[in-house]
């Protein structure tokens, strides 16, 4: 499979105005598939030492989730061994994982399948 994909960026308009509009310049560049920001998931894994109330508080603080949603995720971690807390851009996911590690939770970053 060809791992190179073509990305078309937004047209750049020159001298944009009501009467004269130049032909848009369309820039093309080639990036490898790995460079594209595919969705990443922030996964929290079960740990029998961390208190349930503590994990709930951390989810509320890090993700800004309301208590009910934070508790739902905490229980999912507790019963299923893991829960996907968030998915999106890699940089933000990395930041969330870093924050969760700061609270001593077992958290990983995974590429969404």
């Amino acid at each position: 499979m060809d791992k190179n994909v073509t990305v078309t960026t937004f047209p750049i308009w020159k001298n944009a105005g009501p009467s004269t509009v130049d032909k848009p310049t369309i820039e093309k560049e080639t990036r490898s598939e790995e460079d594209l920001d595919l969705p990443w998931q922030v996964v929290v894994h079960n740990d029998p030492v961390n208190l349930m109330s503590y994990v709930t508080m951390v989810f509320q603080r890090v993700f800004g989730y309301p208590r009910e949603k934070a508790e739902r995720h905490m229980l999912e971690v507790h019963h299923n061994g893991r829960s996907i807390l968030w998915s999106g851009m890699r940089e933000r996911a990395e930041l969330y994982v870093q924050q969760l590690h700061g609270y001593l939770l077992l958290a990983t970053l995974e590429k969404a399948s």
Partner: protein
Amino acid sequence: MEICRRNDEIEISELDPFLAELLRQIPASADPEGTPAAEKRLFSPPTSGTETEICAEWKLYVEPELRRLFQTATETVAADLEQLDGNEKKIASTLRIPSKHADAWLSALNQARLVIAAKYDFTDGELGDHFRSPIGSRRDLSLFQVNFYGFLQEFILRELGGWEKGSGD
């Protein structure tokens, strides 16, 4: 032992020498050095292992920050625990934790619980057995320590909820 909230402080009073000693041990217990399992737990990888580039960057940039964060928390707790200095022989001591130190206490208590649990490789059953007694071995004592620190965490969390609500008023 009595624990209650007084204004902007958590007050732990009527501390007998045994529990006071367990509190004094928080900073030392939170140190993972010399226990590879504890080190591995506190500084776990950010991916399941397949993303080697992310793991390498993490080791280089994030891990030192986490070490500093954890150390700052234990230093704050160690400073609060100085209130107990010189009271080793007293029947009962009192410790006051300012509300602004609550996060540091939560972190240090959690670090200590994780390090002790990793060191003794406690099973889920042992960790869930809150009525295990009497303390007959170093392992039993360590399990008691984990549960005692957990009790303090629960109390601080409960009070923290109140403080956070209060601060928004």
